[in-house]
């Protein structure tokens, strides 16, 4: 059973503000989806997990400096910019 409080907790972890009405709607939907996910209970622990479908190995390249984004390009999509830096929200409350 998933409660409305559980949904608020998940939203907090996901950093998405939701209201009571949304929480109730998500609760109902999550319950049926998670119930569907529980079909995986039938799958045994004896199968190795696949993290990656291709047997890729680490690929190294020459350590040659290349042109990156300019400061102007890096900042062009930010709303809050100060002295050529991103300006973020306060971290310490």
């Amino acid at each position: 059973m998933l409660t409305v409080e559980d949904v608020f907790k998940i939203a907090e972890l996901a950093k998405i503000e939701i209201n009571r009405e949304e929480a109730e709607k998500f609760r109902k939907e999550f319950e049926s989806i998670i119930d569907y996910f529980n079909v995986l209970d039938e799958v045994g622990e004896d199968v190795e997990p696949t993290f990656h479908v291709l047997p890729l190995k680490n690929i190294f390249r020459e350590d040659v400096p290349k042109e990156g984004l300019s400061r102007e390009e890096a900042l062009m999509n930010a709303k809050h910019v100060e002295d050529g830096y991103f300006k973020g929200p306060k971290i310490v409350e």
Partner: protein
Amino acid sequence: MITVSEWRERLESEKCYDLVSELFDRIERSKLNAYITLCKDFALSQAEKYDRGELKGKLSGIPVAVKDCISTKGIRTTCGSKMLENYIPPFDAHVVERLKQEGAIILGKTNMDEFAMGTTTETSYFGVVRNPYDLDRVAGGSSGGSGACLGGKEAVLALGSDTGGSIRCPSSFCGVVGIKPTYGLVSRYGLIPYANSLEQIGPMACCVEDVALLLEVIAGKDERDSTNAGVEFKFDPSKADRKFRVGIVKEMGGNEDVNGRFEEVVEVVKGLGFEVGEVSMPSFKYALAAYYIIATGEASSNLARYDGVRYGFALDKLDTWTKYFSKVRALGFGEEVKRRIMLGTYALSAGYYGKYYLKALRVRTLVRRDFESALKDYDVLIAPTMPSLPFKIGELADPLTMYKMDVNTVPINLAGIPALSLPVGFVKGLPVGLQIMGGHFKENDVLCFALRLEKEFSEVF
């Protein structure tokens, strides 16, 4: 629909500028809502370049539409989301660089489900895409705009991306050809990520030959994507004349409309003298659940980047970190995106990792093994692409019901193999797609088989 060879034929006697202008007239009058952003000035200047003989390459003078989750330098790239409504990438995706190098004319950015999360393009912040064959129905998703612009003669080639069926579903619903390549064949550099371990960029077009041409252009080595396999692709249509061993996947089905047509297709395939058998994939019982756990888990991590600081939707005033971050995401993301981020957050949270995520990865092994064993006996596998004809807009209101429509397409992404959707005529006036699957990097087999059937079907359906 317009094929590359038809377009080239017209280019012999007409100006590229006039033909591209004609396309834009059509797009601007269209009711399909296939495009989010048009690049009219850029496209027309490229067309003039072609007319002056200055545009060279494999795609010179060919109009291409690009899905809006693929970064285009200087051209707004929204991912179908309010979050990126005004985002202008400072760089091109690898595939866009390749299009430009080969002289393609980029028409614009196509509409899609928000962050590619959907099966109908109804979750787009920019409105639903309509089906070219029935405006009251969906074009499929998430690459709905790319499917609809081809079906509606508003482009000649298109790029889509496919995480769990997002190229094949709209290809099926809009009566066009689309292939999800083998994982690692096409660089994902510049593709705005949803679920990295599952998704690939792929070509969509009006015939098999054109899909193969566009795949040749976009496939290949790119060191900026660490999962790129470094493998080139060259289409060899001479292999289409061989005898194929064809496996029918028992667990991939459809409703009456779809199954009726599929059975007719099987009869045609048998009529070609091919060896046809049935294969069973017991792991598919778990594939859909595993897919949604992995996809939402990766999404919850990928979409953490949208913090309203470096790019994307932002509030006028900064606040404390948690409040600002949570508010930006509440206002910038649509409902389906929030749903998937939260589902993924739940499945990855302490205490549930082993029960959901790790189990889903075990299923991934089972699905891969089922395909490997089936592809020992058969060259290609076939099934209906979608279990249903295109839905009415608004028909699938419940999220889980919508997720279940991906049942035939998601196992392919879990295994990383290539799969193509080929139009096999119409039922009740609506297109039906056949899904053709092959082994890792066996795109040539899949395309050759599709090419052979395409010839056959042009006479049958």
